[in-house]
C-alpha cells in the first residue's frame, strides 16, 4: 500500500546502491526531480534502465551513479548527443559504463513480460540487426504451431521503478494522462515503485486516456510540483525546450558539468524537493 512521503525519504527507502532502477516517462512525465534526488543521495553501482535515456540519465551517468545502462535510444531529443553518456561509453569517464542495448519494441515488450510475470516476451524484431549479435537478452524462439522463428527478449524486473504522474489521491491511488508511455508496465514489472505527482487531490476524477495505478501497486507517493521539469506534465506544466538546448554545452565539458552538479544538485543553493 502506498505511503505518502517526501521525495527524499522515498529515494532513501526505496533506492539502494547496486539496485536496478527504471525511471520511465516517454517524452512526457519524465521523473527529473526524482533522478536529481538519486544523484543528491549519491547512489552508486546502479543499473539504470530506460527506453530513452535522455538528459535525465546523462546527468545520472555523469554523476557516477551508474554501473550499467539498459536502453534503446540515448540522445538529447531534438538537440543531439548525450555527451555524458558518450564520455562514459567512449572514454570510461567518470567510470566505465556497461551497456545492454535493445530497440524500443524490445524494451517495451521486456517491461510487458515483467509486468505479466513471464520470463520473456516474443516479438517480430531484431532479425538481421547487429543488436541480435551483441545483446544476450535477445534470442530466437520457434512457434510451436507454425515452426516460424521469432525473437524472444528477457523480461525486465527492476528493483525499483520511478515515474512522475499528474495526481494521486490521499490513499495513494495514482492517475496520469496524456502520453502514457510504458510507465504502467515499468511500475508493475518492478519490486518497488516511487511515484512523484504534481498534486495530491481528495478524489481522482476519471480522465480521458488516463492510466490508473491503485495504491496497492505503488510503494511511495511524493508530491513534487513541476517534478518532470524540463519535461512536462500535460495539464500542469509545459516542456522547457531551452533547458534541453542549454544542456548541450554543459554536458560537452566535464568541468562545466561538474560545476552544474555542484550548483544544481549538491550545493546549498540547489533546489531540494
Amino acid at each position, binding site marked *: 500500500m502506498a505511503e505518502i512521503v517526501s521525495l527524499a525519504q522515498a529515494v532513501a527507502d526505496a533506492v539502494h546502491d547496486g539496485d536496478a532502477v527504471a525511471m520511465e516517462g516517454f517524452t512526457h512525465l519524465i521523473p527529473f526531480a526524482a533522478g536529481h534526488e538519486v544523484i543528491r543521495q549519491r547512489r552508486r553501482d546502479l543499473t539504470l534502465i530506460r527506453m530513452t535515456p535522455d538528459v535525465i540519465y546523462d546527468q545520472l551517468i555523469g554523476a557516477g551513479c551508474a554501473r550499467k545502462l539498459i536502453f534503446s535510444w540515448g540522445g538529447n531529443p531534438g538537440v543531439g548527443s548525450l555527451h555524458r553518456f558518450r564520455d562514459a561509453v567512449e572514454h570510461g569517464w567518470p567510470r566505465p559504463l556497461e551497456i545492454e542495448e535493445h530497440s524500443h519494441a524490445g524494451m517495451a515488450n521486456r517491461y510487458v513480460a515483467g509486468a505479466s510475470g513471464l520470463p520473456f516476451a516474443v516479438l*517480430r524484431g531484431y532479425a538481421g540487426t547487429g543488436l541480435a549479435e*551483441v545483446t544476450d537478452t535477445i534470442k530466437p524462439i520457434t512457434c510451436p504451431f507454425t515452426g516460424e522463428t521469432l525473437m524472444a527478449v528477457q523480461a525486465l524486473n527492476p528493483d525499483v521503478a520511478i515515474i512522475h504522474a499528474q495526481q494521486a489521491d490521499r490513499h495513494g491511488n495514482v492517475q496520469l494522462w496524456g502520453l*502514457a508511455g510504458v510507465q504502467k508496465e515499468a511500475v508493475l514489472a518492478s519490486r518497488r515503485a516511487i511515484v512523484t505527482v504534481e498534486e495530491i487531490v481528495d478524489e481522482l476524477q476519471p480522465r480521458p486516456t488516463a492510466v490508473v495505478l491503485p495504491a496497492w501497486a505503488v510503494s511511495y507517493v511524493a508530491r513534487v510540483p513541476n517534478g518532470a521539469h524540463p519535461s512536462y506534465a*500535460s495539464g500542469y506544466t*509545459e516542456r522547457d525546450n531551452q533547458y534541453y538546448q542549454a544542456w548541450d554545452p554543459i554536458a560537452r565539458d566535464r568541468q562545466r558539468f561538474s560545476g552544474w552538479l555542484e550548483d544544481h544538485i549538491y550545493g546549498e543553493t540547489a533546489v531540494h524537493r
Partner: protein
Amino acid sequence: MSEGYTSDEMMTVAAARALTDGISCFVGIGLPSAASNLARATHAPNLVLIYESGTIGAKPDRLPLSIGDGILAETADAVITVPEIFNYWLQPGRIDVGFLGAAQIDKFGNINTTIVGGDYAHPKVRLPGAGGAPEIAASSKEVIVIVRQTKRAFVERVEFITSVGYGDGPGTREKLGLRGKGPRQIITDLGILTPDPRTCEFTMTALFEGVSRDTVRERTGWDVQFATEPEVIAPPTSHELAALRKFNASEKASE
C-alpha cells in the same frame, strides 16, 4: 541550387511529396516529422500520422518539437501506450510507410545509428542507438529514408546494422522473415535514390534542379550508379514553401 529555396527545403518537400494522401505513416524523429507534417498541410490532408510516443492520427497545426510534444496527444484520434503502438499497430503490418532518418546508410539501404569507428564494445563515436527504427524498418509495408547526402553518411557497408534495408542484397529480407517490402526511396538534399530491382543497390534515379552527377559522386561513399535518364524533380511550389516556412517559423517561435 536555384535561388529562392535551400537544399534542405527541397529535400523536405520531395519527402513530403512521396507520401500519398490517406495512407498511414509511422513518423520517426527529426526530418521525417517535418516532411510528413508538410505533406498533411499540402497535398495529403488525410495522411494518418503515427508517432511511437503513442499517438494515432495526430493533426498538429505546428511542427511538433519532439515525438512527445503535447500537441500530438491533444490532436490525435487515439492515444495509446508505447507497447501497444509497437505490438498492435506496427508489428502486424498495419503501417503503410515507415519514415526514417539515418546517421549512416549503405548501398543496400541498411541503416546504422549505433556506433561509428572502433568496435561495439569500444566505439569511437557512440550514436543514440536503435529507438523504434529496427521494427519500423522490418514491419512497415514500405520504408522511406530521409537523410542529407554526405560521404560520411553514405557508405559502402554500414559498420553496424541497426535497421535492416536489403541486408546483403536480393533475398535477404525474405530469408530473415521481414514482412515489409523494405526501403523504397532514400530522399536526400541532392535527389532521390531507389533500389535497383535486380541488385537492390540504391541508384540515383532523380536529381534536384541544378545538382550535377559529380556533386552526387563527391558526396557518396560508394560507386553510385545513376539511372540512364534521372528524373529532374520540380522545385518547391510557392504553396509548399509557404507551408514549410510557416512550420519552421512556429518551431523557432516556441523554442
